[in-house]
């Protein structure tokens, strides 16, 4: 079988045998979003206005929470050494790991988002656009995040450093995604933002595995 699929299946298998590793960031996502109506106001109009921002910021933070463990575990037990010296293409193996990370962190968020959208009084069209932006942009979060995770893999407790490195790269994604959802609430066209998110996705899909492979070789030295 292809090394991409083997890595993907291995990482998913490991995660499902230790579910707290990927359930914690998801719990954080659901709990923190459901606290906003209690803390700010249960008023539909207020919540509707801030919903795109809330959902997107919390998505970003929960992906960041799970990014730290992307390579750390394999670094500590020595599997990453074997991956780096393997004759297989390193970017392909890393793409497998990143895909597994997206399936465990991004995909559940996409599936949960309609529920939380309803809780924040988003209308059906905005929920549809919200899911669309999440589908386009959560893979970018994992891909761009993998670059940062491979840069800091040899540093213990690198969560803060990782956030500092990665958050600036997340900002364009945040701007386009939230503006798409809030414009759709006023029935304005959102094609431009979606095209931008799509192009960011294609660009990061093509470049991120290669950059993180180089970064990983540097940090393994």
């Amino acid at each position: 079988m292809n090394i991409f699929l083997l890595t993907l299946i291995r990482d998913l298998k490991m995660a499902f045998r230790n579910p707290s590793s990927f359930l914690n960031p998801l719990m954080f996502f659901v709990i923190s979003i459901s606290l906003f109506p209690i803390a700010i106001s249960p008023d539909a109009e207020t919540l509707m206005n801030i919903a795109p921002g809330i959902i997107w910021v919390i998505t970003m933070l929960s992906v960041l929470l799970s990014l730290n463990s992307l390579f750390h575990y394999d670094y500590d037990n020595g599997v990453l050494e074997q991956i780096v010296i393997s004759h297989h293409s390193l970017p392909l193996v890393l793409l497998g790991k990143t895909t597994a990370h997206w399936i465990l962190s991004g995909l559940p968020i996409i599936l949960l988002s309609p529920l939380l959208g309803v809780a924040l009084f988003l209308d059906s069209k905005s929920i549809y656009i919200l899911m669309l932006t999440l589908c386009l942009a959560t893979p970018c979060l994992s891909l761009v995040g993998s670059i940062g995770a491979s840069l800091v893999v040899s540093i213990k407790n690198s969560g803060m450093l990782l956030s500092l490195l990665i958050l600036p790269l997340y900002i364009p994604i945040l701007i386009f995604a939230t503006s798409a959802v809030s414009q759709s609430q006023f029935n304005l066209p959102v094609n431009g933002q979606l095209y931008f998110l799509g192009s960011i996705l294609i660009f990061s899909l093509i470049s991120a595995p290669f950059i993180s492979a180089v970064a990983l070789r540097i940090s393994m030295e």
Partner: protein
Amino acid sequence: MSKLSVNNLSCQRGYNLLFKNLSFELNSGEVLRITGQNGSGKTSLLKIIAGLNSPELGSILFDQSKSNSERYQLETLFLGHYAALSLELSCIENLEYLTNLSTENIAPNFHNALYKVGLKNYEHELARNLSAGQKRKIALSLLFITHSKVWLLDEPFTALDSNGIKIIESQIEKHCEKGGLCILTTHQDCNIKNLREISL
């Protein structure tokens, strides 16, 4: 007849120069033991030969292929300090993944390899439930599967019982009789034929 040649290798870690102008050649059938005190650069040397780290100066060739080529990576097997195991996976799942990473073996016999190192009936046990020595043995069972010619073993006998050490020693001898070569570091005595030593 294969040959691994190390030419004028120098390695620096931090401000320390670990070794410089290190050269040696190793032919098929030979075992090289690297000796030296703690911190003398044994692991660094093995990692450089494995292609994991790059040396400050010098080069490594195996039958004319450079250490960053795909052929070189297929021909070398590196087992490091860590057992390279994921605790959530069973013995056989761990071994499958490691085999896929390191060789292009079409139909490896995992059960046989685990049987040879004394892990019969542990195939589907999760690695977290095993002792340190047993974990080590999973990684070492790769030696019964791989087709790589150059074995780079960093402290392979750590945590092994005396019987386990004998099994691994005899497997290294078999490998060399078949034309392979092996570089290892260990602080324990080892009884292997054709053993050469260099000191760092």
